[in-house]
């Protein structure tokens, strides 16, 4: 009986061409948009480029000239320097050709806005002045030690070791992780039909099913399985498109990325079934609730604003552990960042627990809704 119902439910899923079509098309279109929009984002926001500055000679300052020369040459130059007069420099500042203007006389700086680049300029001047102060301090207090102090100031020290984490880490990939989470949660839209199609007062198909002698558990399980199969196809297409066509970096364990997407899809379907099983609300309202839940879930997981998840983890850390979209996108993140599997497994277990919770919850809500024979 299971196979019989499964067969018809599966065919019915395929007949909902529009829904399936959009479920598949949705990540393809949005993924492409994301790819285009983020093409230069990481380079422009996080990566360091030499800061363009203008230097105006209000007084001769040979030492400073030499220092500025030093830091503006070579591969990892700090500044890109333009030497010019005040009038031209201010014009450049206005046109945003330079970040700031340094006057060689009193070593004052001029900006038109504030930000990290401006801070770099200011902190450079500050460091220069600091060294100047140390040298004059020593010259007055302990002139005999001046040479050692100057050499101490210019020694290269290796005090700070960076611990690299994940090669070529690009934080914009998390938008794609969340996009996949959204596709998985949209499985809820097909999941809701399992509930509606088994409820006699909500659909004629449900009425037909209710008066058939099929065990309800069998019928619903078959329906859920059919929708899960379709959702799995959608997830596989979505991941393949992102990984192979858009070349999004998922790390080197793509098999597990597929696995977590598929389980995420199951969770989406189960969530839809659970919400769909609530009371006698109409299909439209149930759909509305599902959309509201999945949109909020994705928003709080960082689909629109990427640091929202960090904010959540600061104020309500527990929520990130149970927010479905966050759990799904975290599995991809774990695979990309960590070598060991403990965190990935924990997220997968959370996903499975949520799926089981939604499914059992749905079963409990729909059980004993029987209709007496008249």
């Amino acid at each position, binding site marked *: 009986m299971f196979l019989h119902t499964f067969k018809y439910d599966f065919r019915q899923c395929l007949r909902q061409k529009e829904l399936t079509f959009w479920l598949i098309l949705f990540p393809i279109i949005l993924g492409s948009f994301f790819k285009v929009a983020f093409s230069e984002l990481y380079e422009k926001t996080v990566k360091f480029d030499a800061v363009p500055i203008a230097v105006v000679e209000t007084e001769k300052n040979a030492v400073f000239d030499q220092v500025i020369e030093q830091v503006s040459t070579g591969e990892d130059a700090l500044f890109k320097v333009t030497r010019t007069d005040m009038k031209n420099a201010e014009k450049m500042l206005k046109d945003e050709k330079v970040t700031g203007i340094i006057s060689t006389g*009193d070593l004052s700086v001029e900006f038109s806005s504030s930000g990290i680049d401006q801070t770099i300029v200011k902190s450079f001047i500050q460091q220069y002045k600091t060294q100047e102060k140390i040298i004059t301090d020593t010259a007055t207090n302990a002139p005999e030690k001046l040479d050692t102090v100057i050499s101490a100031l210019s020694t290269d020290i290796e005090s700070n*070791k960076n611990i690299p984490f994940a090669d070529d880490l690009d934080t914009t990939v998390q938008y794609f992780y969340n996009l996949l989470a959204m596709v998985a949660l949209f499985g809820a839209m097909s999941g809701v039909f399992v509930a509606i199609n088994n409820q006699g007062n909500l659909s004629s198909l449900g009425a037909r099913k209710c008066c058939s002698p099929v065990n309800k558990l069998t019928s619903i399980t078959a329906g859920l399985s059919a929708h899960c199969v379709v959702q799995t196809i959608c997830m596989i297409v979505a991941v393949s498109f992102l990984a192979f066509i858009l070349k999004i970096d998922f790390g080197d364990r793509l098999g597990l990325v597929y696995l977590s997407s598929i389980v995420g899809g199951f969770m989406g379907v189960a969530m839809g079934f659970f919400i769909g099983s609530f009371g006698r609300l109409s299909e439209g309202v149930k759909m509305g609730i599902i959309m509201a839940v999945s949109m909020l879930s994705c928003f709080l997981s960082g689909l629109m604003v990427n640091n929202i998840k960090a904010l959540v983890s600061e104020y309500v850390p527990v929520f990130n552990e149970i927010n479905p979209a966050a759990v799904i996108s975290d599995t991809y993140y774990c695979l990309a960042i960590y070598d060991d599997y403990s965190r990935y497994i924990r997220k997968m277990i959370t996903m499975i627990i949520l799926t089981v919770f939604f499914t059992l919850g749905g079963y409990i809500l729909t059980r004993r809704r029987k209709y007496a024979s008249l």
Partner: protein
Amino acid sequence: MQVFKTFLKVLKKKLPNALIFIGVFMAIAIAMANSGAETAKYEDYEMKIGIIDRDNSKESKALSEFVLDGNKPVDIADDEDEILDAVYYERAGYILIIKEGFGEKLKNGDLNDLFENYKLPSSVYGTLFDNRLDSYLNSVGAYMSSGLEPTEAMSKAQEAMNVETKVTMKNFEDTGNDDYSENFSYYYKYLAYILISVLITALCPVLLIMNRKEIKARTICSSITASSQTFQIFLGSGGFVLIIWIFFAAAGYILTDGIMNQKVLLAMLNSFIFIIIAAGIAMLIAAFEPSSNVLNMIANVVGLGMSFLCGVFVPQDLLAEGVLTAGKFLPAYWYVKANNMLAGTCGEVFSKSEIFKCFGVEVLYAVALFAVVMLVMRVKRKEA
């Protein structure tokens, strides 16, 4: 006004659903508006720094004090998972681990191998921070070589690093002398996404029912003229759209403590023109009669897609040239551009004439959209 009445009846039926969406998007708009803000005055960039002190000595405490001076401390446990999370989600821009034995080493004048750090690869924060720390250590080393004790050298170095530098802020922008708060500009910027999503998810279902074969056939065979039908549907939609606009504009007004001035009025006008465009988009989508179940996905594709391409979520000055060029063909680009001018962000300068130019382009989009909507409706009617 039969058609108008029917429209209202359908709207009433669909209202609970629409309210869910309005509520959700309202919540998202408020959360977004509060998630970011910049300052107009020059201030040193406040970095979010986490320090893990494994040495716990007098010296390491002095160092922490220096590092955190002017920066924002981030609480972080000595746990690799937590550290990686904090850096990845940019909760902390830099995490400095002070290794055990720091105090001892410093006393012996050994400045090598004192710390470990986590940061995003080649990040700006990292460069800034590393520079400052190196310079500090050099200063400490210099003071120690002149014969000072480590802690004394540290406080001297910190003092030396705080020498005043004169900073002048040039203001090239005519700010219009009005107060236009950052939160307000964020709220209005994100409204581009919100309005499109709300109208597609709330208005489309009503229009879809009006387009349903039975209702349409019934109306077409009545004595009401086609233009009167169209007019009444437009009237109904217009009323609904107006209410939604008032709702969001009022919410923005309350959120920003009721500031009202020229710039705020311009921002409101901007959003008013944009909601008409959004209504046009919603009507166009409804004219193609998708099933109501896929509306949400369409809303996301159109809303999110346009927002990412036009600089709603990602500031316009950070988008690639090509994206911006493509974005110019989308109405949201002009909406966001006008809003950036009002706020003076993304390198835009406040200029009334330029802003009205953006408004003009938006109006043209609205007109074009409605022309297409009418055309599609006419063609569909002929088919029916």
